[in-house]
Structure formats: structure tokens, C-alpha cells
């Protein structure tokens, strides 16, 4: 099953490489990874999506917690949570496709953020499966380039991951 694991860690050199190294060292899988400092610049928030059995996920959270730089770990998928991913997708846009892409982008609540006579670049945010659906709808023949941020997420309601 797919899990979203959120990690609060010291914003120090080498901390990220310890997390990434742990995943390869222990043969855990990384589907996506995002990381950036929080409002407290001494802390970074890292979100990793991974796929594994309950046993593997338990090991991942335990092993992450063992890293000295890691302050807190939570598996967001254990409770109600919100997840978002941002994608920028560059498409060949000429003739009829120009209108088609615009319509589809509207339906998905995407925005066209760059326009040339032959291309459109669409920005889209949402859960990962929504981004997948957009790609599928337009079909790969028109896609020139795709860049995705990977998933970020947090728990719903009062629950927070903080010191």
C-alpha cells in the first residue's frame, strides 16, 4: 500500500543524504520526495511517498526515527490528511489542440502559465492521481515535458507535526 510519511528534521548539511541513504541501504522504495525548510529555519519538513507492506512501513518509520537528525516522523496515511502535488506540463499546442488543451486545463482547474505560438505550459495542483488523470486525458503524443514536485501533505484538523 502507498504511504505518505512526513518527517520533521534538523535543517543541517547531510541530513537529507542520511534519509535518502537509509532508503537505499535498507532496500526501501521511494516513490517521491520533497523537502524544504519550515517557518522555523532550523527545521526542515520532508515528505516521502513509499509503497510497502505494514511491516515494511513500520520499519521505515522506526528507522527514520532512529536517525539523529530526525525530530519527528508521522505516517499521514494512518489518519485523515490532505495531500497535494504540483505539476508543470509543456504541451504541443497548435490548431485545434489549442482550444482542447485550454478546455481540459479548465476542467482540471489548471492554469496556463506560459504561451508560445506552438506550445502551452499548464500548471496543475492536486492529489497525484488527479495529475495522472490529466496526463492520461491529453494523451502522451502532445506532451513535450512534465515536471512534478512530488507529494506534500499534512494531517487534517488540529493535529500537527511540530516540536
Amino acid at each position, binding site marked *: 500500500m502507498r504511504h505518505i510519511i512526513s518527517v520533521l*528534521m*534538523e535543517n543541517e*548539511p*547531510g541530513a537529507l*543524504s*542520511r534519509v535518502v*541513504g537509509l532508503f537505499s*541501504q535498507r532496500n526501501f522504495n521511494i516513490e517521491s520526495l520533497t523537502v524544504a525548510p519550515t517557518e522555523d529555519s532550523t527545521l526542515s519538513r520532508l515528505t516521502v511517498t513509499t509503497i510497502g507492506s505494514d*511491516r515494511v512501513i*513500520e*520499519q521505515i518509520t*522506526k*528507522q527514520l*526515527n*532512529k536517525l*539523529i*537528525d*530526525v*525530530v519527528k516522523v508521522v505516517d499521514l496515511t494512518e489518519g485523515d490528511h490532505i495531500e497535494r502535488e504540483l505539476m508543470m506540463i509543456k504541451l504541443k499546442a497548435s490548431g485545434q489542440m489549442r482550444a482542447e488543451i485550454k478546455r481540459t486545463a479548465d476542467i482540471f482547474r489548471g492554469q496556463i502559465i506560459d504561451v508560445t505560438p506552438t506550445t502551452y505550459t499548464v500548471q496543475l495542483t492536486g492529489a497525484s492521481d488527479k495529475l495522472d488523470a490529466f496526463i492520461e486525458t491529453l494523451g502522451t503524443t502532445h506532451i513535450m515535458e512534465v515536471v512534478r514536485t512530488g507529494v506534500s501533505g499534512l494531517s487534517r484538523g488540529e493535529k500537527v507535526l511540530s*516540536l
Partner: protein
Amino acid sequence: MEQLSGAQMVIRALQDEGVKHIYGYPGGALLHIYDALFQQEEVQHVLVRHEQAATHMADAYARATGKAGVALVTSGPGATNAITGIATAYMDSIPMVVITGQVMSFLIGEDAFQETDMIGVSRPVVKHSFSVQNPEDIPSIIKKAFHIAESGRPGPVVVDIPKDMTNPTDRFNYEYPKSIKLRSYNPVSRGHSGQIKKAIDMVLGAKRPVIYAGGGVIMGDASAELTELAKLLNAPVTNTLMGLGGYPGTDRQFIGMLGMHGSYEANMAMHHADLILAVGARFDDRVTNGVDKFCPTAKIIHVDIDPASISKTIQADVPIVGPAKHVLQEMIELVKGSKKQPGKESIDSWWQQIEEWRGRHGGRFRTDDSELMKPQQVIEMLSKVTKGDAYVCSDVGQHQMFAAQYYKFNKPNRWINSGGLGTMGFGLPAAMGVKMNFPDEEVVCVTGEGSIQMNIQELSTISQYDIPVKVICLNNQSLGMVRQWQDMNYESRHSQSYMKSLPDFVKLAEAYGHVGMKVEKYEDLEAAMTEAFSLKDRMVFMDIAVDPFEHVYPMQVPRGSMRDMWLSKTERT
């Protein structure tokens, strides 16, 4: 406030940490630190002949004392040579602080002379590492390094110091922190009382309990507590390879080591147990054999300081995260205060069964009519001559298993071996590290002609510092354990497992200024060994010719259950 250079701060911090010996090898990146070292006397430096030996010496000091050992190695090859020793300590959870030199900070990343990304190279085999970015941070980084290495589940910590951080002309305020707090690191100090109570309820209701205790009991200083609890419960105790000495080896309730080369009775008892109390052990693959067939009727209570060890390979029914000492103390109080006591009848009949197993195959090897000495006989003789009271530092291979099986350890911290990583070349430097810190104790290196040659250069260090260890080399002229597997699984095709052109070890020892002895007949063994140990201030190398065809038994059948064992070349359970 005192003004010190970075180099002086490194040495001063070690003094303030109470470090007496450090083991190392100088080099360009460390010259400032070695110069500061030269100008003081509190911290003694031991110059090894290869950096791997420095790490093993520091590691063995830690295994014998429970305190972090310290190694000092230069950048590049010095650092990479230390990796095997760091990995050895990591696998066995041994506290160690390794200070590595680094090229000057402005050269990092430019492929400078003797540059290696030590933080990166060591990352998978350290508990944590620090790279010094400001000389002012040196005292607090060293304090943190010791704190992290020694607390929680211990492990090695690397402190990488670029040369310009130790510049003798740049001086800074020095103050060694009295204590340190890390917001992201808070090892547990006690177990969950509810879980401990639940565990004891189960233990007292068990009909066929086994206590399975590992290295956590040794490093957690909990062998007295383990012994007391086992006595209260009249439960059989088995130790892992790392746990030997954690329970007295000559006690009736000790049923031997368990696992791949564990005793028949220990493996049988584990397989038939209805309850396993695991303390400071990690259910590794050399213990469990096939995990799907592991102890089918047992409920499992798992006490460990590291939550990640619990349910990693074998699901625990009652997990208890905490230091072995505190958890066992709490268990003892609960048993003492409980109305419920172990069912006498069921425990008696369990013991009857165990005694029957012990009687059937109780750890005996066969001596045949051949002239050849059995390696087991040598270990038994060693146990006799040293009265079971020596520090035994082992290398890796058949001799290691024979030592584990036949030397009866009654005290903790006296069996010193590379259990997890299985590092050949560990034994000799380990023995040196122990002997330097316990000069009045007998310290032995049990080795083979293969392992000893992996760090043989340390015979020179022994001359320099007069470290009178005794080397017991079980010379079977082959890489015995490899050969055994080839005999059992590859129709005796001995691919690269025998040693051609062995040196004359007696002459070699003599060349380094030591005493060499060669023993070829069992009838000469006792006299020779007694003589060797009577030479209190000399290093003695005993080259002992043993049967090259001997195998280590019992040996579990791969991927079978605990009870599936070869008991000799022809008998299987």
C-alpha cells in the same frame, strides 16, 4: 576563558572526557592535532601499523569496559582503512568515536590530495557523524559524539575535521560542556510498565519458557539482573554469540549458545518453547534460521533498547522498548511480589526434557585415533589453563565458533568477537586494545592462520608498546569455515580455501621480538600452554597444528527450523 587552537581543543576535549588511550596513525590532515598531542601527557597515543587495527583496538576497549573507544586517522586512505573497523562496531552496537582528518575546507570537493568524502563513505555504518565547520564547535561536537556513541543503542560516531579547523595560530574560547541535550535524540530510559507487567504474567504462566539473551545484556550492564531473574524463574538461558558471558557459562541453567552453531539443547529448547523472553537480542538470521519455521509454538516477549529491532524479522507478541537493566530490574520486582509463581511441575518436566537433550548430544566433539589434534581440545585446554577467566578476543571462522562453544564464560565483557560483520583480522588488535587497559589480566587472541594474517603487522605495535597478549592460532592450513561449507554444499571442491605458502609463524613472531611456539601433538599442549601463560611480560604466538578436516557442529540446516541440525558429518536431527 582559556584560548585554544582547534587542534588543542580536540585533545583537551578528549582529556575532559577522561580518555586515557587513543589509537591512530598520523597523516597530513592531522599534523596540527598530532602536534597538540605531542605537547601533553594525559592522553596516550598508540601508533598502530594499519588504521583498521586502530579502530579494532578502540572497539575492543569499548567491548571490555562499556565506554567509547577513540581512534584517530587521517583523511583519504586513513579514513577508508578505518571503515571496516567502523562497520564492525556498528554491526555489534559498540560505542566508538572516530576522529578523521579532512583536507582544508576550501579544498573539499576539488579532489584534493588524500581527499575522501568520509561523511558520505561512512554514512551507512555509523550511528551518526559530524563535520566540523567552525573550530569553536569542536568541544560541543566531541561532547555530542561521546553522548551519542554511548547512550541508547550504542554505536560508532565519526567526527570529520578539515585541517584548517585545527590551525595552531587561530585560537578560540574553550569550554567543555558539562552535559548536552539534543532535541532530536532522546533514548528511552525505562520500559513501559504496563507491557512489563503483561510480559511477567505470561512468563509466570509459561510451561516451557526460554530466556534468549544477547549482546544488549553485555553492553547494557545487565548480566547480574539477567542472572537473578533466571534464577527466580528457574528458566533455561541461552546466549547469542554476542551475549556469551551475560549469563554464567558453567551454571546449570545455561544451555549454551543458540543458532547456526548453537548447542543441540539450546536449539531444541527454542523450537519447543511456549514462551521466549528475548533480552537485548535481535533475532538475526544466524539465530533464527528459516523465519517462517521459527519457534512455532512460542509467544515472544522482546526487550530491546532499539524499537527498530523489535518485530524487524520476528513479530513480537509483547514488545518492550527499554534498557535491559531497568526492564529486568522491574521484572525481578514483579516476580518477587507476585502471588503467582512458575508452575513447578511443568518447569520440572521442561528441565527433564532439556537434560535429556543435553545428555544426548551435550556439546561433545569426537576424538578419533588420528594423531591430529582437535581444535576443540585446544579451546578446552585454554579454558583450563586460564581457569575460564581470560579475556578471549577472537577472529572469525571455525576457531571463533569453537571458542564460543568450548570456552565457558562466567563473566560479561570477556568474550570479544566480531559477531555481526564477521571481520577477519579483528582478533589481534582487539586483544591489544583490551590488554593495554587491563595489563594484569590474561588476554588471549584465538585465531586461525587465515585471520591472523589479515592484521599480522600489529605484531610490530605489540613490540613498541610491550603488550603481552597470547595468540592461540588454530592452524588447520585452510580457511576452515569456507572449506566446511564447500565440503557440505559443493562436493568438497575446495575453491581457494586452503592456504599455500604459510609463513613459519614461530620465526615470524621471533622476528618481531616475541616468543614463538609450535605445538603439533596433544600430549605437548598443556605444558606448552602453561609455559606460554607463565611468560607474563612476553607476547607469545602459539602456532598449534589442528585437524584440517574438522567441522563445526551442530550446524543448522539452511532455511530449516531451529531444530534442523547436522550433529556430525553423518548425523542429522
